[in-house]
């Protein structure tokens, strides 16, 4: 197991190096100069040049790459061109929104999906199964930004139960913040829950077809007990992978939802960064996200080892 983890770590490091190169090259290709963007229509060329110097945009590409990587290794992600604050601070502030949002959405989707998937599997072919399958198909087909829009119209504009968006900040109290994240989390969770419920269902069905389920029944376990004591844990293994993938998607993939609800999250930071050519932010945040995903996948791999004893020894 140890050598397995070590070898995975080496692969992880190599992936990160490749990823950083890809990101750097892509960012280098993005046209548009941050300085002239910041100074607007009537700026004189010498003013732009002065600002470029101030932002530290000089140097050859390899030089800049090494400076960027070197900085990141020391925890220095650079300074945002537009905000003029350290990127690390910006990211931390934004994560305070994105991370809870992702966790909420994931919790919501998992809490819905696992029982629903289990229920559908246990009622295979019955009306309960059919309606779950139909609803989840619908859930997958609904674009989440559209769903978000409908949620806003109903719950913010018509009923006024929630505000239409925005985020008060955790220092304004936990409850208002959670409330502000509720609608976005629901919008994000719907398609995820649908996918997860279907994975759960087919995973349970797959497991229910296994010989050891028949063994358990032959031992005298009731259907329900067989499901909970034998099927569930085995069925959760593929579900775990999907949850891992979804989490990384939720952290970065919420850009559109963050826009609909004008939440100051990580996704919108990147989006803004791109449109405002705050490329240092984009570069560093994308790198962080990639790192997070690779790390999550790595951890899921390790978690497998605990969920499935067959994988513990390699």
């Amino acid at each position, binding site marked *: 197991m140890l050598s397995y983890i070590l070898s995975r770590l080496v692969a992880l490091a190599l992936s990160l190096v490749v990823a950083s190169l890809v990101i750097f090259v892509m960012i280098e290709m993005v046209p548009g100069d941050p300085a002239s963007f910041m100074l607007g229509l009537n700026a004189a060329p010498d003013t732009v040049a002065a600002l470029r110097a101030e932002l530290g945009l000089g140097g050859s590409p390899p030089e800049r790459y090494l400076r960027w990587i070197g900085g990141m290794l020391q925890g220095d992600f650079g300074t945002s061109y537009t905000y003029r604050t350290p990127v690390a601070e910006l990211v931390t502030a934004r994560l305070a929104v994105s991370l809870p949002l992702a966790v909420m959405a994931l919790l919501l989707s998992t809490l819905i999906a696992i029982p629903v998937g289990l229920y559908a599997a246990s009622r295979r072919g019955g009306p309960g199964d059919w309606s779950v399958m139909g609803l989840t198909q*619908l859930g997958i*087909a609904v674009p989440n930004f*559209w769903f978000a829009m409908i949620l806003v*119209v109903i719950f913010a*504009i018509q009923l006024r139960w929630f505000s239409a968006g925005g985020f008060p900040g955790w220092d304004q109290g936990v409850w208002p913040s959670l409330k502000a994240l509720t609608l976005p989390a629901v919008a994000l969770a719907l398609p995820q829950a649908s996918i997860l419920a279907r994975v759960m269902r087919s995973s349970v069905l797959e497991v229910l077809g296994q010989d050891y389920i028949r063994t358990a029944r032959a031992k005298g376990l009731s259907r329900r007990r067989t499901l909970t004591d034998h099927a569930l844990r085995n069925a959760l293994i593929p579900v775990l992978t999907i949850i891992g993938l979804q989490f990384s998607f939720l952290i*970065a993939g919420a850009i*559109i939802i963050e826009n609909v609800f004008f939440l100051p999250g990580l996704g919108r930071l990147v989006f803004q960064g791109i*449109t405002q050519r705050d490329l240092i932010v*984009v570069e560093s945040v994308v790198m962080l996200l990639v790192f997070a995903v690779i790390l999550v996948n790595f951890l899921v791999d390790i978690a497998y080892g605990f969920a499935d004893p067959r994988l513990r020894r390699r």
Partner: protein
Amino acid sequence: MRPRLPVTLVAGLALTALFAAAALLSLVWTPHAVDVLNIAARLQPPGGDHLLGTDHFGRDMLSMLMVGARTSIAVAIVAVGIGMALGVPLGLLAAANHGGVVDDLVMRGNDLVFAFPALVIAILITAVFGPSAFNAILAIGIFNTPVFARVTRGGALSVWTQDFILAARVSGKGAARISLEHILPNIASLLIVQGTIQFSLGILAEAGLSYVGLGAQPPLPSWGRMLADSQTMISFAPHLAVLPGLAIIATVLGLNLTGDGLRDHLDPRLRRPS
């Protein structure tokens, strides 16, 4: 005795066919022209001369939806095509080289692409090359590639363990030839099912990209942009935002049902006599 077609497959095919037909029809005929604006006739509710009403420029919604179907379907199909064209050979290669360096490289590359936040990269691509349907296709296609590579490799690996592959090797056939002659036909149904699912995801992705303004550019109608353009009017002209939304849902639903139905229908496990 061929098994009966699953209900989901029939429903899915019917929905898909409806939108595909609308898209094809729009090539030769639409109820009204979509490139002529008539500001005076804008925001008409459904009914009357314009069956589904008009948009904020006075264009006929039905015609817009038909041409929009064409855009969405074309973008998704080409993107899936790119994903298949790149992913399937990579997957075959990796499977043929199972456990080797090439396999490792392909799989690591896959993981790497998966690790990138897709939407962010799509936005970057359009920042580099400008927003257009073509670049939307490119972005969606790139992220389809590892999906197909992974599915192909998985399917191919299980075919590789079959005895008939050994028989082919005994007959002196090389890995490339075996991949084409034996592996590919046997994972075709898998790829068709995955292709259908990616197709529906492609429709959603195109809608999402157009929604943020990175997909097809005006005057070419696109469902996502129709949604984005009209959502501020949802409270006084709800049909503008609701109709494209429903079109997206129905198409994606149709494709997903088709994919699911095909999976049930083509599942080789159901074929085997037991």
